């Protein structure tokens, strides 16, 4: 069993009468890269700040490495934060910035020097020791901010959208860099972002947060393949969602009717006749259907073709419902006004409606 490094126990946070976090419980393991992902205003940054202590919880408990730190002030917690805007000290050199935490902890000067040197090597910024933050590029400032945190060897490093102010190319580069440093140092990372690509590509696990609660916490792959709520299915990747109702059930097969007046056959999962379901089909789960396919066949009126190199994204309509699907460009396909699509009932995700509330 892996060791739990951070434990949140029913954490709640109200701010001026508004419930920002509505009771979150979460275990984060030692050495894990966990991402808190959600739309802006969902409470993910507030949650991170309760772990660093910069924000007090309204109720609930926070444990770090088994110790109750709920009422411990920030500077006494063995965590460090990387801020969105870096928050570097502009009057100090790179070396002084990085060494600040150690100096405050009264670490001997010679040790500060060697440890600062180590992390400067780790972030590949040798030769920049005497520069001021204003003389560095955005990416370099980002590295210094990171070094200023990890040099203290915290038990947990909290990262608050640290890459959001960098341009696309640099961001991709820093994602790889962050992951490398995290693996090398073995520090538990808790990472906040609203960028799903970032979350999926770096994390061991991702917690999807919406409206102050965790919708789902899973590995990136599970989140995509088996979303547990409509929100997760919509937030991670693209999805076509249909309201549906169970028409009839046979032993291991159920017939359900989609909102677009189409009956499809799916695996029976103890459904009751009349039960309401949500069917989620990813754009790439659609395949072109041949004449002889009759079951689970969509007839789509196409509206727009968006060419994207290896595939073409097609927007279309079934009745009044908008549908999105993907045609691989090596498929035998010519632009058509009408196209027939099929899908395998093994791939798609079906949510029971009462899962939602």
């Amino acid at each position, binding site marked *: 069993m892996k060791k739990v490094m951070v434990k949140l126990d029913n954490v709640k946070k109200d701010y001026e009468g508004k419930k920002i976090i509505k009771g979150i419980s979460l275990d984060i393991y030692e050495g894990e890269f966990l991402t808190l992902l959600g739309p802006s205003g969902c409470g993910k940054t507030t949650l991170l700040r309760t772990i660093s202590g910069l924000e007090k919880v309204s109720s609930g408990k926070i444990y770090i490495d088994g110790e109750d730190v709920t009422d411990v002030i920030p500077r006494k917690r063995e965590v460090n934060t990387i801020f969105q805007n870096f928050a570097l000290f502009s009057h100090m050199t790179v070396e002084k910035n990085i060494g*600040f935490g150690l100096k405050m902890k009264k670490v001997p000067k010679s040790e500060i020097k060697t440890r600062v040197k180590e992390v400067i090597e780790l972030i590949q910024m040798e030769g920049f020791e005497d520069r001021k933050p204003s003389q560095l590029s955005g990416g370099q400032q980002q590295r210094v901010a990171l070094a200023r945190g990890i040099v203290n060897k915290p038990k947990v490093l909290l990262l608050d959208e640290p890459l959001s102010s960098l341009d696309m190319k640099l961001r991709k580069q820093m994602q790889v860099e962050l992951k490398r440093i995290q693996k090398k140092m073995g520090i538990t990372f808790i990472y906040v972002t609203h960028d799903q690509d970032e979350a999926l590509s770096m994390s061991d696990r991702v917690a999807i947060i919406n409206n102050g609660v965790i919708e789902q916490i899973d590995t990136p792959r599970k989140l995509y393949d088996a979303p547990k709520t409509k929100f997760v299915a919509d937030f991670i990747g693209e999805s076509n969602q249909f309201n549906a109702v169970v028409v009839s059930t046979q032993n291991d097969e159920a017939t359900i009717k989609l909102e677009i007046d189409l009956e499809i056959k799916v695996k029976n999962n103890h459904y009751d006749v009349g039960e309401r379901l949500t069917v989620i089909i990813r754009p790439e789960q659609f395949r072109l259907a041949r004449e002889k396919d009759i079951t689970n066949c969509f007839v789509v009126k196409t509206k727009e073709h968006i060419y994207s190199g290896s595939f073409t994204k097609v927007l279309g309509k079934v009745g009044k419902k908008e549908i999105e699907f993907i045609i691989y460009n090596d498929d035998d396909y010519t632009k058509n006004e009408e196209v027939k699509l099929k899908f395998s009932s093994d791939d798609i995700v079906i949510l029971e409606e009462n899962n939602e509330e």
Partner: protein
Amino acid sequence: MQRHRHLKNLFIFLVFLFLYLPIITLIVFSFNTSPLNILFEGFTLEWYGKLFSNTTLLEALKNTIIVSVVSTVISTFIGTLAAIGLQKYNFVGKNFINKLLYVPVVIPEIVLGISLLSVYTLLKLNLGLGTLIVSHIAFSIPFVIISVRTVLNSTNLQIEEAAHDLGANDFKTLTNVIIPEIMPGIVSGATLAFTLSLDDVIISYFTAGPGSNTLPLQIYAMIKTGITPDVNALTTLMILVIMTVLIISSLIQVRKMKKEYAR
């Protein structure tokens, strides 16, 4: 194009002439053999010698320096902390206090002088260096606050959280992070306070007592009896000191900038 440049240069020359001609005149007449500041009759260092035996003038100079230095130090200290406090904390009446800060800045000095005098009379305080210093502190503080606040407003205040996060307590955060970060604002506030105090006449006129004459007051008083060239000598020396300080500080600036951009 060429003509335009000549016109531009001429204009700049006239502006500088306008600014510096009085100062140059003053310096020239400090070496004048005639005691009247009307015609230059010949070169002499006599007035510089007389200056050092003019005890009233030297006493006034001493008072001016004491008042300026003490009031600058105290008003910078109070003003800086006040600016940080006003930025950081929210409390009832904060907006009102912020507006109130501008009153001493815009109020006519003569009103401020009379009000200070009536307070001192009410409290039965003897006018002297003490009341003078307190008055100078009073009118300097808003200038320091305003100048520090300008820098604070453009500072990323998350550095305070970062400092706490890295293990600094409140005091260390203030002394090691916040103060150095806003130092440019503190320095310009202090400079402003110092220069305002150095040449203040009106408020000092009301709040100084016997034996606490400052230089501006003394010179002002001398107008009635006629200004002797030893005042010219004294102000020439003051200009010399100020110029030296300015030149040294800009040399340091230039060297620092060269060092930073050399890489």
